Protein backbone atom coordinates (compact mmCIF):
# COMPACT_ATOMS: atom_id res chain seq x y z
CA UNK A 1 0.00 0.00 0.00
CA UNK A 2 2.73 2.46 0.99
CA UNK A 3 4.54 1.64 -2.25
CA UNK A 4 1.44 2.69 -4.12
CA UNK A 5 1.39 6.07 -2.35
CA UNK A 6 5.07 6.52 -3.02
CA UNK A 7 4.42 5.81 -6.70
CA UNK A 8 1.60 8.37 -6.77
CA UNK A 9 3.79 10.92 -5.02
CA UNK A 10 6.56 10.37 -7.55
CA UNK A 11 4.14 10.77 -10.47
CA UNK A 12 2.74 13.93 -8.87
CA UNK A 13 6.22 15.41 -8.45
CA UNK A 14 7.21 14.59 -12.00
CA UNK A 15 3.99 16.15 -13.27
CA UNK A 16 4.63 19.24 -11.14
CA UNK A 17 8.11 19.46 -12.68
CA UNK A 18 6.74 19.21 -16.21
CA UNK A 19 4.07 21.86 -15.54
CA UNK A 20 6.65 24.15 -13.91
CA UNK A 21 9.05 23.92 -16.85
CA UNK A 22 6.30 24.33 -19.46
CA UNK A 23 4.86 27.40 -17.74
CA UNK A 24 8.28 29.04 -17.54
CA UNK A 25 9.08 28.29 -21.17
CA UNK A 26 5.66 29.24 -22.50
CA UNK A 27 5.27 32.61 -20.77
CA UNK A 28 7.49 34.45 -23.30
CA UNK A 29 5.46 32.98 -26.18
CA UNK A 30 1.96 33.39 -24.85
CA UNK A 31 2.16 36.33 -22.49
CA UNK A 32 0.10 39.29 -23.68
CA UNK A 33 1.51 41.92 -21.34
CA UNK A 34 4.99 41.91 -22.80
CA UNK A 35 6.78 44.89 -24.25
CA UNK A 36 6.29 43.78 -27.87
CA UNK A 37 2.51 43.80 -27.46
CA UNK A 38 2.51 47.19 -25.81
CA UNK A 39 4.84 48.82 -28.34
CA UNK A 40 3.25 47.31 -31.43
CA UNK A 41 -0.18 48.51 -30.29
CA UNK A 42 1.17 51.98 -29.78
CA UNK A 43 2.01 52.63 -33.42
CA UNK A 44 2.41 51.04 -36.83
CA UNK A 45 5.47 49.05 -37.73
CA UNK A 46 8.52 51.18 -38.70
CA UNK A 47 7.01 54.28 -37.10
CA UNK A 48 8.98 55.69 -34.19
CA UNK A 49 6.71 56.70 -31.35
CA UNK A 50 7.30 58.39 -28.04
CA UNK A 51 6.62 56.06 -25.14
CA UNK A 52 7.14 58.42 -22.27
CA UNK A 53 3.78 59.33 -20.88
CA UNK A 54 3.59 61.39 -17.76
CA UNK A 55 2.84 58.32 -15.63
CA UNK A 56 3.40 54.61 -15.98
CA UNK A 57 -0.25 54.10 -16.76
CA UNK A 58 0.05 56.02 -19.98
CA UNK A 59 2.45 53.54 -21.55
CA UNK A 60 1.41 50.29 -19.94
CA UNK A 61 5.07 49.56 -19.34
CA UNK A 62 6.02 48.88 -15.77
CA UNK A 63 9.14 49.68 -13.80
CA UNK A 64 9.99 52.64 -15.96
CA UNK A 65 12.55 55.10 -14.70
CA UNK A 66 10.98 58.53 -14.11
CA UNK A 67 14.18 60.17 -15.42
CA UNK A 68 14.23 58.22 -18.64
CA UNK A 69 12.20 59.38 -21.61
CA UNK A 70 11.96 56.85 -24.34
CA UNK A 71 10.64 56.04 -27.73
CA UNK A 72 10.47 52.87 -29.76
CA UNK A 73 9.63 51.40 -33.12
CA UNK A 74 8.91 47.90 -34.27
CA UNK A 75 10.48 46.40 -37.38
CA UNK A 76 10.56 43.26 -39.43
CA UNK A 77 13.91 42.35 -40.98
CA UNK A 78 12.17 39.92 -43.35
CA UNK A 79 10.73 43.01 -45.08
CA UNK A 80 13.77 45.30 -45.02
CA UNK A 81 16.70 46.40 -42.91
CA UNK A 82 16.19 48.95 -40.17
CA UNK A 83 17.88 52.29 -39.88
CA UNK A 84 17.41 54.39 -36.76
CA UNK A 85 18.68 57.96 -36.86
CA UNK A 86 18.50 60.85 -34.44
CA UNK A 87 19.76 64.38 -34.00
CA UNK A 88 22.83 65.41 -32.11
CA UNK A 89 22.41 65.98 -28.43
CA UNK A 90 24.37 66.22 -25.23
CA UNK A 91 23.96 63.95 -22.27
CA UNK A 92 23.26 60.30 -21.92
CA UNK A 93 21.20 58.34 -24.41
CA UNK A 94 21.14 54.66 -25.20
CA UNK A 95 19.56 52.22 -27.59
CA UNK A 96 18.65 48.56 -27.24
CA UNK A 97 17.59 46.24 -30.03
CA UNK A 98 15.11 43.62 -28.84
CA UNK A 99 13.75 40.53 -30.51
CA UNK A 100 10.03 39.87 -30.39
CA UNK A 101 10.38 37.97 -27.13
CA UNK A 102 11.88 40.97 -25.37
CA UNK A 103 15.49 39.78 -25.18
CA UNK A 104 18.18 42.33 -25.85
CA UNK A 105 20.12 41.55 -29.03
CA UNK A 106 22.42 44.54 -28.92
CA UNK A 107 22.76 47.77 -27.01
CA UNK A 108 24.83 50.91 -27.29
CA UNK A 109 25.07 54.30 -25.62
CA UNK A 110 26.22 57.77 -26.61
CA UNK A 111 29.83 56.94 -25.74
CA UNK A 112 29.97 53.92 -27.99
CA UNK A 113 28.21 55.64 -30.89
CA UNK A 114 30.20 57.24 -33.69
CA UNK A 115 30.53 61.04 -33.13
CA UNK A 116 27.91 60.85 -30.37
CA UNK A 117 25.30 60.57 -33.13
CA UNK A 118 22.51 58.08 -33.29
CA UNK A 119 22.84 56.21 -36.57
CA UNK A 120 22.11 52.55 -36.23
CA UNK A 121 21.47 49.90 -38.85
CA UNK A 122 20.06 46.48 -38.06
CA UNK A 123 20.32 43.82 -40.74
CA UNK A 124 19.77 40.12 -40.98
CA UNK A 125 22.70 37.96 -42.14
CA UNK A 126 21.56 37.88 -45.78
CA UNK A 127 21.19 41.66 -45.98
CA UNK A 128 24.59 41.90 -44.32
CA UNK A 129 26.24 39.87 -47.09
CA UNK A 130 24.59 42.03 -49.73
CA UNK A 131 25.75 45.15 -47.93
CA UNK A 132 29.36 43.93 -47.77
CA UNK A 133 29.35 43.38 -51.51
CA UNK A 134 28.17 46.88 -52.30
CA UNK A 135 28.63 49.24 -49.38
CA UNK A 136 26.49 52.35 -49.75
CA UNK A 137 27.85 55.78 -48.88
CA UNK A 138 25.06 56.72 -46.53
CA UNK A 139 25.93 53.98 -44.11
CA UNK A 140 29.54 55.06 -43.65
CA UNK A 141 29.02 56.54 -40.21
CA UNK A 142 26.50 54.03 -38.99
CA UNK A 143 26.81 51.36 -36.35
CA UNK A 144 25.80 48.19 -38.18
CA UNK A 145 24.39 45.25 -36.28
CA UNK A 146 23.72 41.81 -37.62
CA UNK A 147 20.69 40.19 -36.01
CA UNK A 148 19.31 36.86 -37.05
CA UNK A 149 15.74 37.74 -36.23
CA UNK A 150 12.53 38.59 -38.10
CA UNK A 151 10.37 40.89 -36.07
CA UNK A 152 11.80 42.99 -33.29
CA UNK A 153 11.85 46.45 -31.79
CA UNK A 154 14.32 49.14 -30.86
CA UNK A 155 14.04 51.32 -27.78
CA UNK A 156 15.75 54.69 -27.53
CA UNK A 157 16.27 56.05 -24.03
CA UNK A 158 17.31 59.55 -23.05
CA UNK A 159 18.10 60.66 -19.52
CA UNK A 160 16.32 63.82 -18.42
CA UNK A 161 17.94 64.93 -15.19
CA UNK A 162 15.40 67.64 -14.44
CA UNK A 163 12.67 69.70 -16.01
CA UNK A 164 15.15 72.16 -17.56
CA UNK A 165 16.23 69.47 -20.01
CA UNK A 166 12.68 68.64 -21.09
CA UNK A 167 12.71 70.62 -24.35
CA UNK A 168 16.00 69.16 -25.47
CA UNK A 169 14.93 65.62 -24.63
CA UNK A 170 11.57 66.04 -26.34
CA UNK A 171 13.19 67.44 -29.46
CA UNK A 172 15.76 64.63 -29.55
CA UNK A 173 13.04 62.00 -29.31
CA UNK A 174 10.80 63.72 -31.84
CA UNK A 175 13.67 63.87 -34.34
CA UNK A 176 14.43 60.17 -34.04
CA UNK A 177 13.24 58.19 -37.03
CA UNK A 178 13.00 54.57 -38.03
CA UNK A 179 13.43 53.85 -41.70
CA UNK A 180 13.39 50.86 -43.97
CA UNK A 181 16.54 50.33 -45.92
CA UNK A 182 16.24 48.14 -48.98
CA UNK A 183 19.43 46.28 -49.68
Amino acid sequence: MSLRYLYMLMCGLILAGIVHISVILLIPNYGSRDAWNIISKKSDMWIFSNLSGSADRATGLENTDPYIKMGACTFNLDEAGLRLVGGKTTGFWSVSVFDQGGSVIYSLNNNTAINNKLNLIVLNPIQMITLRDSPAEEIEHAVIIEADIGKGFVVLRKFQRDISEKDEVDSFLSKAKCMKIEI
Partner: protein
Amino acid sequence: MLAVGVTVGATSAWYSIQRSHGIGAINIGVWTAWPYSGANQADPYTLARITSDSTLPLGAAEGLAFEATRDDDGAFLKLECNYILEGNTPKAKLWSLTPYRQDGKSIQTEKDNNLISYHTNSTRLLRYADGTFQIALGPIPSPGNWLATRGNGVYRLVLRLYDTPIASNTGIADPIMPKIINIGCPQ
Protein backbone atom coordinates in the same frame (compact mmCIF):
# COMPACT_ATOMS: atom_id res chain seq x y z
CA MET B 1 -2.66 13.49 -7.87
CA LEU B 2 -3.18 15.22 -11.19
CA ALA B 3 -4.59 18.31 -9.52
CA VAL B 4 -1.81 18.43 -6.96
CA GLY B 5 0.85 18.05 -9.68
CA VAL B 6 -0.59 20.84 -11.81
CA THR B 7 -1.12 23.15 -8.83
CA VAL B 8 2.34 22.63 -7.39
CA GLY B 9 3.94 23.05 -10.83
CA ALA B 10 2.06 26.22 -11.68
CA THR B 11 2.48 27.77 -8.25
CA SER B 12 6.18 27.09 -8.12
CA ALA B 13 6.57 28.57 -11.62
CA TRP B 14 4.64 31.68 -10.63
CA TYR B 15 6.55 32.00 -7.37
CA SER B 16 9.94 31.58 -8.99
CA ILE B 17 9.39 34.46 -11.39
CA GLN B 18 7.73 36.77 -8.87
CA ARG B 19 10.32 36.79 -6.17
CA SER B 20 13.91 37.81 -6.44
CA HIS B 21 15.15 34.41 -7.42
CA GLY B 22 18.78 33.52 -7.42
CA ILE B 23 18.92 32.32 -10.99
CA GLY B 24 20.97 34.70 -13.11
CA ALA B 25 21.10 37.22 -10.28
CA ILE B 26 24.01 38.91 -8.56
CA ASN B 27 23.72 40.12 -5.00
CA ILE B 28 25.65 42.95 -3.40
CA GLY B 29 24.45 43.40 0.16
CA VAL B 30 20.69 43.81 0.04
CA TRP B 31 20.79 44.73 -3.63
CA THR B 32 20.04 42.32 -6.45
CA ALA B 33 20.57 42.74 -10.18
CA TRP B 34 19.93 40.56 -13.18
CA PRO B 35 22.79 41.41 -15.54
CA TYR B 36 21.74 38.79 -18.05
CA SER B 37 18.26 40.23 -18.54
CA GLY B 38 19.92 42.70 -20.87
CA ALA B 39 21.86 40.14 -22.84
CA ASN B 40 20.74 37.62 -25.39
CA GLN B 41 21.82 34.74 -23.19
CA ALA B 42 19.05 35.42 -20.67
CA ASP B 43 17.96 32.26 -18.87
CA PRO B 44 14.34 31.05 -19.20
CA TYR B 45 13.41 32.34 -15.74
CA THR B 46 14.70 35.81 -16.44
CA LEU B 47 12.92 35.83 -19.82
CA ALA B 48 9.65 34.74 -18.22
CA ARG B 49 10.07 37.43 -15.60
CA ILE B 50 10.65 40.16 -18.18
CA THR B 51 7.65 39.19 -20.30
CA SER B 52 5.24 38.68 -17.45
CA ASP B 53 5.65 42.11 -15.93
CA SER B 54 5.94 44.23 -19.11
CA THR B 55 9.37 45.52 -18.20
CA LEU B 56 11.92 46.66 -20.73
CA PRO B 57 15.30 45.46 -19.46
CA LEU B 58 18.35 47.66 -19.84
CA GLY B 59 20.87 46.43 -22.39
CA ALA B 60 24.39 45.78 -21.15
CA ALA B 61 25.70 48.97 -22.77
CA GLU B 62 22.85 50.99 -21.33
CA GLY B 63 23.19 50.13 -17.68
CA LEU B 64 22.16 47.85 -14.88
CA ALA B 65 19.25 48.02 -12.45
CA PHE B 66 19.64 46.91 -8.85
CA GLU B 67 16.68 46.39 -6.60
CA ALA B 68 16.28 46.06 -2.87
CA THR B 69 13.23 44.92 -0.95
CA ARG B 70 14.84 44.68 2.47
CA ASP B 71 16.94 46.89 4.73
CA ASP B 72 20.32 45.87 6.10
CA ASP B 73 18.68 44.15 9.09
CA GLY B 74 16.78 41.90 6.71
CA ALA B 75 13.34 43.43 7.31
CA PHE B 76 11.12 44.37 4.36
CA LEU B 77 11.19 48.02 3.30
CA LYS B 78 8.00 49.78 4.35
CA LEU B 79 6.60 53.04 3.05
CA GLU B 80 5.76 54.26 6.55
CA CYS B 81 9.30 53.75 7.89
CA ASN B 82 12.27 56.08 7.71
CA TYR B 83 15.60 54.90 6.38
CA ILE B 84 19.06 56.24 5.76
CA LEU B 85 20.71 55.21 2.55
CA GLU B 86 24.43 55.73 2.83
CA GLY B 87 27.63 54.82 1.11
CA ASN B 88 28.40 54.89 -2.56
CA THR B 89 27.45 53.21 -5.82
CA PRO B 90 29.63 51.39 -8.34
CA LYS B 91 31.07 53.58 -11.07
CA ALA B 92 28.41 54.93 -13.39
CA LYS B 93 27.94 58.05 -15.47
CA LEU B 94 24.47 58.58 -14.04
CA TRP B 95 22.16 56.81 -11.71
CA SER B 96 18.62 57.15 -10.51
CA LEU B 97 16.88 55.92 -7.40
CA THR B 98 13.16 55.18 -7.47
CA PRO B 99 10.87 53.45 -5.01
CA TYR B 100 8.04 51.36 -6.46
CA ARG B 101 4.91 50.16 -4.74
CA GLN B 102 4.20 46.47 -4.73
CA ASP B 103 2.06 46.72 -7.87
CA GLY B 104 5.01 48.09 -9.84
CA LYS B 105 3.71 51.65 -9.91
CA SER B 106 5.68 54.67 -8.83
CA ILE B 107 4.70 56.45 -5.61
CA GLN B 108 4.31 59.70 -7.47
CA THR B 109 1.01 60.14 -9.24
CA GLU B 110 0.08 62.44 -12.11
CA LYS B 111 -1.58 64.86 -9.72
CA ASP B 112 1.64 65.52 -7.82
CA ASN B 113 3.67 68.57 -8.56
CA ASN B 114 7.43 68.27 -8.56
CA LEU B 115 8.01 70.09 -5.28
CA ILE B 116 8.54 66.88 -3.36
CA SER B 117 10.94 64.29 -4.77
CA TYR B 118 9.57 60.80 -4.82
CA HIS B 119 12.67 59.74 -6.73
CA THR B 120 16.13 61.17 -7.19
CA ASN B 121 19.19 60.96 -9.42
CA SER B 122 22.92 61.37 -9.13
CA THR B 123 22.96 64.89 -10.59
CA ARG B 124 20.75 66.28 -7.80
CA LEU B 125 22.74 64.84 -4.96
CA LEU B 126 24.70 66.52 -2.18
CA ARG B 127 27.80 64.49 -1.46
CA TYR B 128 30.47 64.38 1.20
CA ALA B 129 34.00 65.38 0.28
CA ASP B 130 35.01 61.74 -0.25
CA GLY B 131 32.23 61.22 -2.80
CA THR B 132 29.94 59.20 -0.57
CA PHE B 133 26.42 60.34 0.15
CA GLN B 134 23.56 59.97 2.53
CA ILE B 135 19.90 60.03 1.51
CA ALA B 136 17.04 60.16 3.98
CA LEU B 137 14.22 57.97 2.77
CA GLY B 138 10.78 58.08 4.32
CA PRO B 139 7.70 60.15 5.04
CA ILE B 140 9.41 62.56 7.48
CA PRO B 141 11.12 65.48 5.71
CA SER B 142 14.82 65.73 6.27
CA PRO B 143 17.53 68.29 5.45
CA GLY B 144 20.10 67.34 2.85
CA ASN B 145 19.09 64.63 0.41
CA TRP B 146 15.56 63.51 1.04
CA LEU B 147 13.51 61.07 -0.96
CA ALA B 148 9.88 61.05 0.12
CA THR B 149 7.65 58.05 0.54
CA ARG B 150 4.03 57.99 1.64
CA GLY B 151 1.26 55.54 2.36
CA ASN B 152 2.03 52.21 3.89
CA GLY B 153 2.97 48.72 2.87
CA VAL B 154 6.10 47.12 1.55
CA TYR B 155 7.96 48.58 -1.38
CA ARG B 156 10.93 48.08 -3.62
CA LEU B 157 13.84 50.43 -4.23
CA VAL B 158 15.39 50.41 -7.68
CA LEU B 159 18.83 51.90 -8.26
CA ARG B 160 19.59 52.15 -11.97
CA LEU B 161 23.18 52.68 -13.00
CA TYR B 162 23.59 54.07 -16.49
CA ASP B 163 26.69 53.59 -18.59
CA THR B 164 28.45 51.50 -15.98
CA PRO B 165 31.36 49.13 -16.55
CA ILE B 166 29.89 46.57 -14.15
CA ALA B 167 27.05 45.79 -16.56
CA SER B 168 29.45 44.56 -19.18
CA ASN B 169 32.09 42.94 -16.98
CA THR B 170 31.21 39.54 -15.67
CA GLY B 171 33.47 39.90 -12.67
CA ILE B 172 32.32 42.79 -10.57
CA ALA B 173 35.51 44.40 -9.36
CA ASP B 174 34.14 47.07 -7.12
CA PRO B 175 31.03 45.83 -5.39
CA ILE B 176 30.05 48.89 -3.40
CA MET B 177 26.37 49.55 -2.90
CA PRO B 178 24.74 51.86 -0.39
CA LYS B 179 23.53 50.49 2.92
CA ILE B 180 19.89 50.83 3.88
CA ILE B 181 19.54 51.48 7.59
CA ASN B 182 16.20 51.62 9.35
CA ILE B 183 16.03 54.63 11.68
CA GLY B 184 12.51 54.14 12.91
CA CYS B 185 8.97 53.15 12.12
CA PRO B 186 5.85 54.76 13.58
CA GLN B 187 4.50 52.71 16.43
